[in-house]
């Protein structure tokens, strides 16, 4: 195992994160604060509690998930797309590093950045609402696993993307709608029965539900399903990445 290679990629990528710290951290914090003001304070004051939790607190796990998913996908996709775009990919391809090591370096760096943002947003949430976390260890487990698995997805998108438009396409057209429709801002029990069934095909439902359970102890779907869904999603991403490196898809001519 070329651990030195993983560390080199990780350090290099994190250096980019710290170089663009303001843009990386300030903008998600600002947008989350806006959500709290609009949904929590303005609209939330007219909404009854949801499953015994005040609406302002209820949306906290969903808001964190929203940022973490979008950030993971965009960080990881940009991280590997940029070397392709500027041509430095030649070095990765000619290095004595396996696909596991290259992926690990980029995905760990992207996941670290989204984890940082997730935690900063959680800190911001404390400013606006009262929250107690019932299962902190599970909360962190869900958060870290989500960062990792969606960074894997981002990595795949970054390799697939042939231009900047495609790079933006998936986060914009797929991830954001899935998160908004995945019960970030509502409990799926609030939906008509047909939509409740359709929603169960949205993988984000399981993530948000499990994450919310770790905060409040209530969930839309059983916690076992949530864990299973994340595991399945991670495995599928790993298989795709394995195939990409084996065939050289979009990497080696």
């Amino acid at each position, binding site marked *: 195992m070329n651990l030195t290679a993983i560390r*080199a*990629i990780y350090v*290099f990528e994190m250096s980019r994160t710290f170089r663009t710290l303001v843009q990386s951290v300030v903008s998600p914090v600002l947008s989350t604060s806006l959500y709290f003001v609009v949904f929590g304070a303005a609209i939330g004051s007219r909404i009854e509690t949801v499953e015994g939790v005040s609406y302002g607190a209820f949306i906290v796990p969903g808001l964190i998930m929203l940022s973490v998913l979008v950030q993971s996908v965009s960080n990881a996709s940009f991280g590997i797309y940029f070397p392709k775009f*500027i*041509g430095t990919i030649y*070095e990765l*391809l*000619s290095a*004595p590093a396996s696909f596991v090591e290259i992926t690990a370096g980029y995905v760990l760096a992207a996941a670290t950045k989204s984890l940082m943002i997730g935690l900063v947003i959680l800190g911001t949430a404390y400013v606006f609402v009262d929250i107690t976390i019932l299962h902190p260890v599970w909360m962190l487990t869900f958060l870290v696993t989500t960062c990792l698995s969606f960074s894997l997805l981002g990595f795949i998108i970054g390799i697939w993307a042939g231009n900047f438009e495609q790079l933006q396409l998936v986060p914009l057209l797929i991830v954001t709608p899935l998160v908004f429709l995945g019960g970030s801002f509502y409990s799926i029990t609030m939906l008509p029965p047909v939509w409740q069934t359709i929603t169960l095909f949205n993988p984000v439902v399981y993530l948000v539900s499990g994450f919310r359970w770790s905060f409040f102890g209530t969930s839309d779907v059983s916690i076992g399903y949530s864990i299973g869904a994340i595991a399945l999603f991670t495995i599928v991403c790993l298989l795709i990445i394995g195939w990409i490196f084996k065939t050289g898809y979009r990497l080696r*001519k």
Partner: protein
Amino acid sequence: MADIVTVRDLRKSYPDGFQALNSVNLSIREGEILALLGANGAGKTTLISAICGIVNATSGTITVGGHDVITGYRAARRLIGLVPQEINLEPFEKVINTVRFSRGLFGFQRNEAHIEKVLRDLSLWDKKNSRINELSGGMKRRVLIAKALSHEPRVLFLDEPSAGVDVELRKDMWRVVERLRQDGVTIILTTHYIEEAEAIADRIAVIAKGEILLVEEKAALLQRLGKKQMVIHLQTPVRDIPMELERYNLDIGPDGSLIYYYDTRGKRTGITMLLSDLAAAGLTLRDVQTRQSSLEDIFVDLVQKDA
């Protein structure tokens, strides 16, 4: 000397049917400087890319230091440094960080002393904290070389190192190459500047249309294919070759001089006879020059013959 890189029956074709490499066989000896000469699109970069793992070959085998580049890629690639033709660098990162990154990526432990030496050798030490996008084109090329040298390669590929580089940097680069050779590093350099091959290479390989046309010692190649010309300036310029001299291989130069072609490999060059026959024909010499054909002439000859 033992071979450090061997390429056997290497082929590369693209889905559109383009055959970039066609049954390439090449053995590169440890410690030598091999110049791979060829026109644009001849397959130089594809060959290097296949050895370094950037391009998947269609068939054939490649070993570096005895390790197959596919099955033993870790061991093989640890020996290789690649300086690509295009200036591919992360624009916003500091020079020293990109060089450290390369060392780590190739699995070498941090060694600041080595990084400093590499940067000093390439006159980059003063720029170590500059961002790449603040550097001139020539400086960027030095950074590419520094990245490749950061992980102490035993085999260094320089793909068109002098493309778009000024004379000073080219000379600097040749000095670095000379130092590396003294350390026993094998260097493969692609170029279409023949003077470059002539100046620093031990052996020359000529590639055209994806095939290696020849691989030879530079000196032997020059000698084997080298024809000499002797230009004879006469007191009174001539328009036609005098009858007495018709049996010699002569041309008339534009200024009315005589040009004699001869082969240095031959037992006799025929120069003595020619000169005495010149005198017999009543021609008076003003000056004599000889000229050896350069690699460039040889190269043009070879590629034209092939076309």
